């Protein structure tokens, strides 16, 4: 079983600071597919990735990466390529020097591939790292990862700050990488349009907990978006209103598909977009409700700890699986 998974996190907990921690984080990706890790800023995407890559410790749970327990043999890093929002190379290195510096560390470094990829990506061997645009820097990190023949590519918000044309190019590069069935991709993002199309699996993380994880269709099927007038959706019985937004013009919330039938007549119930799911799940604690008394409880702002417990019991980590 484990060899068919690119990675898995099971019940991972990691205290980051006094007020933030990953709690009981579980999700996994089968080899050969793309997973989008979606969440607001500060939701814990980067922390989860750092735990997965062995870049930081964790206190509870276990992580498996390419068939090995983390922390595992250091040789495992031969198989993993990482693209972060800023490069981790010396700014004054030319791209030829990047190769010279990194090549000695990798058993399967392919010089011709590196040169070919740079040419394909429109990168000049003589350019300096610090002079690269955001998109070029992303492509350089991809070129490095592909040159040492990584089997798993991990992107931390690769698309933030990229123009649409470069984002599309990135989707094509990821598609090329995935032509090999042994290759897998994890990327974190808060822009849902990118995931909408190429993501096979999705994990929604919110305040250090997994809100939902599964295939994209499973996630989409698991929720419904409901819309009503300003006075609708008050205190519905047995229905949890996720990220309720009440304005003088109307009310909108996300509900679980199974509970949607319990809503009374006058509201519009529709299949949500990923964007709407992200907005409502991400809004659960951030948004200050203008009428806390009428909000039916879920969007009130309780003490952080209480809120977490509440969410913990109501949204199990793998509810859509």
């Amino acid at each position, binding site marked *: 079983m484990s060899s068919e998974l690119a990675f898995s996190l099971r019940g991972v907990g990691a205290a980051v600071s006094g007020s933030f921690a990953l709690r009981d984080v579980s999700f996994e990706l089968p080899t050969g597919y793309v997973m989008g890790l979606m969440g607001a800023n500060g939701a814990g995407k980067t922390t989860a990735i750092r735990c997965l890559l062995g870049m930081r410790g964790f206190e509870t749970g276990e992580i498996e990466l390419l068939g090995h327990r983390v922390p595992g043999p*250091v040789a495992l890093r031969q198989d993993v390529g990482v693209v972060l929002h800023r490069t981790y190379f010396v700014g004054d290195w030319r791209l030829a020097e990047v190769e010279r510096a990194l090549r000695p560390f990798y058993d399967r470094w392919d010089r011709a591939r590196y040169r070919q990829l740079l040419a394909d990506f429109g990168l000049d061997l003589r350019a300096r790292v610090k002079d690269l645009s955001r998109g070029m820097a992303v492509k350089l990190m991809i070129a490095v990862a592909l040159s040492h023949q990584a089997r798993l590519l991990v992107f931390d918000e690769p698309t933030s700050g990229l123009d649409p044309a470069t984002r599309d190019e990135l989707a094509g590069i990821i598609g090329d990488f995935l032509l090999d069935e042994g290759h897998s991709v994890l990327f974190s993002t808060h822009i849902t349009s990118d995931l909408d199309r190429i993501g096979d699996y999705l994990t929604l993380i919110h305040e250090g907990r997994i809100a939902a994880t599964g295939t994209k269709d499973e996630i989409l099927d698991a929720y419904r978006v409901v819309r009503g007038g300003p006075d609708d959706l008050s205190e519905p019985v047995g229905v949890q209103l996720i990220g309720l937004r009440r304005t003088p013009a109307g009310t909108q919330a996300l509900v679980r598909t199974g509970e949607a039938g319990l809503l009374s007549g006058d509201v519009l119930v529709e299949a949500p977009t990923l964007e709407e799911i992200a907005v409502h799940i991400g809004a659960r604690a951030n948004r200050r409700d203008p009428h806390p008394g009428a909000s039916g409880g879920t969007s009130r702002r309780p003490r952080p700890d209480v809120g977490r417990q509440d969410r913990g019991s109501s949204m199990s980590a793998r509810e859509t699986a």
Partner: protein
Amino acid sequence: MTAIARVAVLNLRTIAPYRSQGLVLLGVAVLLGARSPVLVLPALGLLAAPIAAYPFNVADKAGLETLYSLLPVTRRCVLYGHYAWAMASYLAAVAVGAALAFPLARVEAVPFTGRTFLTMLTLAWALFAVNVAIQFPLLIRFGYTRVSVLATTVPLALLFFIIVKLDLTIGSVQIWLPLLWAAGLAAMAASAAVAITTDRKRLRYGKPERDDPTGTNQRLE
């Protein structure tokens, strides 16, 4: 072993773009040597310490700690690699020093015997080793920006020149030579041990992390 050597070479590549600044230091050494060829070696031993520490400066700015944590080398190899790099920079510095000191001594017609050379080599080593032994654990734990390299180099430089001003004769240091070598080596070994022990707190599994002075865990989102 090879992994340690690779990290040492990575340090060299890290500062390679700034090699022209090293030439300035070399110029300083030549100027000093022109006045007193005997002092070239200890001066270079002293200058080698900030050069050995320089990769930490570049690493801080470029986020190389991330690179170290992604490369297929153990954390221990990374740390030993830093020390291997330091030793290599000492050897390079004294090699350059020797190459300068002998011709300069000849030109200035200053006596420069093998015994003097050995003494100066030892002094250079002691100055270098004490510097690096103090600085490296701090640099590894806190990063370059939070540790002033000059904090140890400047006092040592002053000490060195006071010793020179006191007109400490070469003969009087002679008996201390083996001790100085041993002390330098011991300091380096102790330093590496301290660095590894304190660094272990950075990455911990199964127990809560209390503090994180390198800030790596704070730069999260």
